[in-house]
């Protein structure tokens, strides 16, 4: 089973909300000091989904990451978890893209990789949260896609997926090749092992420029966008919480109930 997992380097979504700052002039988010970027958690879970298939029946996992100035310690994490190869689409012209230009570049890189049975993506990137790139890659490649999977099993040349729906899940089977996007309900991704970290340190990523995947700079990054960001801003939070004071938490709990009664909330 040849598997490709698309992983994005993002601002750490677990960073304290107070550290989140926007530069209104450029409509960009400022990197909080002291909080390094991470692999988008949904993408890490996509790596986990691929590793579970590799564990059960073997296979090869190639990780594909697009960006510029990618931190090697960050983007190599899937290798330290057990992925086999890392391809970086790294160039300044890949910057500032939207779902369109990103999906296009990734799809072209996947064509260049050539052999694949399964492509995994996170259900959405933890920064822009749009959840379009996976479906976009599948559409460009002309293969079926199943989104928001919490379980993926390979059986008899097909893949069986549990796709999350509002009040439960659907079991869906798909022929290969196919693209699957993975949701957090899959469960936590495994930790990197010491052995894995050492093996990953020795591996050199393959680096592709736009010319290597046969794309024009006008089709990718900011130039290839089909949507325009007009404004990026932080919603105003009121922050007027009345803290119930008491000598013990139990007393505070009881007082809270009285407070809610007085406010006619219960």
């Amino acid at each position: 089973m040849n598997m490709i997992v698309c992983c994005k380097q993002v601002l750490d979504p677990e960073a304290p909300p107070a550290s989140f700052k926007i530069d209104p002039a450029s409509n960009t988010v400022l990197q909080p000091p002291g909080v390094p970027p991470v692999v988008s958690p949904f993408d890490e879970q996509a790596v986990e989904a691929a590793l579970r298939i590799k564990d059960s029946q073997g296979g090869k996992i190639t990780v594909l990451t697009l960006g510029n100035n990618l931190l090697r310690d960050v983007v190599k994490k899937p290798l330290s978890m057990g992925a086999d190869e890392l391809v970086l689409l790294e160039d300044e012209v890949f910057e500032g893209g939207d779902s369109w230009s990103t999906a296009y570049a990734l799809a072209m890189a996947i064509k260049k990789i050539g052999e694949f049975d399964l492509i995994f993506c996170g259900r959405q990137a933890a920064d822009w949260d749009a959840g379009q790139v996976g479906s976009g890659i599948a559409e460009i490649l002309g293969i079926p896609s199943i989104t928001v999977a919490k379980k993926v099993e390979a059986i008899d040349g097909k893949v069986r997926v549990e796709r999350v729906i509002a009040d439960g899940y659907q079991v869906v089977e798909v022929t290969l090749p196919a693209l699957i996007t993975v949701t957090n309900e899959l469960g936590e991704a495994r930790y990197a092992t010491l052995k894995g970290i050492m093996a990953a340190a020795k591996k050199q990523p393959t680096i592709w420029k736009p010319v290597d995947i046969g794309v024009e700079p006008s089709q990718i990054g900011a130039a290839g966008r089909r949507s325009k960001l007009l404004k990026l801003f932080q919603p105003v939070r009121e922050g007027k919480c009345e803290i119930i004071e008491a000598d013990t938490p139990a007393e505070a709990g009881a007082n809270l109930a009285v407070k809610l009664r007085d406010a006619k909330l219960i």
Partner: protein
Amino acid sequence: MAEFKGVMVYGETTEGKLTALTTELLGCGRRLADELKEDLLCILVGEQLGEAPQSAIVYGADKVYTVEDPLLKEYQTDSYVTVMEKAIKDISPQILLLGQTAIGRDLAPRLAFRLGVSPSMDCLELNIDPDTKLLQGTRPVYGGNARAIFVSESLPQMATVRQKAMSPLEPDESRKGEIAPIKVELDPAKIKTKVIETVKEEVEGIKLEDAEAVVAGGRGIGGPEGFKELEELAKILKGAVGASRPPCDNSWVPDTLQIGLTGKIVTPELYIAVAISGSSQHLSGCSGSKNIIAINKDAEANIFKEARFGVVGDWKQALPAFTAKVKELLAG
């Protein structure tokens, strides 16, 4: 732009009825169509649509297109994208709205890439720019830490809309409209997926989305046992239990209880957050609640920024006393 006309809502139905979100989309679509002085169109796709097409007119549509076919019994990407591609090319609306649901978040991107357009996903607000007449979509980004306003010039302009972000119109039984069945040839060989089964994981009692009181637990609850205490409180308040992501990801509670960016959106009168730190992605799912009450041992926890009342302390001590007092007050 002349050939693209009308605002179209992709409607969803369950058991022959429009979903609540579809009526919200029609309410929003009606406003946009009126601003553009164009018609509000609705398209419904399924095996049997029952009374839903007429209901779409009652909720504001001028014209309802219906596509009925046994192959459309269940949502599958390949068949539904094929239907919508054909319909959009024939009808050429200038705006297409879908719900941010299991269907909408799958259908919208794939359809958009086929049509060569760029949707705004999970919008909280939609407006027409008075100068350009283009659709502006405001959506949460960075896990709810920020909002972004997007516009796209490629037509149709597409957006998906979050539940409960828009209001439906008052139903008007006297409204007149047209229902137009359309036929789309589907080739079963081109549907590469097969739905084996649909598993409902409904929990007993009041549905989380409908509850007027929600008692939600977070990572700090520590395990499945703690949620029993939350259930007890929810029962007394005639509400439902929910959770932030960690309890679901750790299988302490079913995934269907998850509230947040990747879970359910709830807007109850009373939202009691127990041992929830208040990450932006969780707040995305509950910040529409009328009154948020927080119990957390960390006075700096982000949840207190959203809460009206709070207790700083260990929930294991605060909650039983709170529950007992609530019970006493409600009994008295």
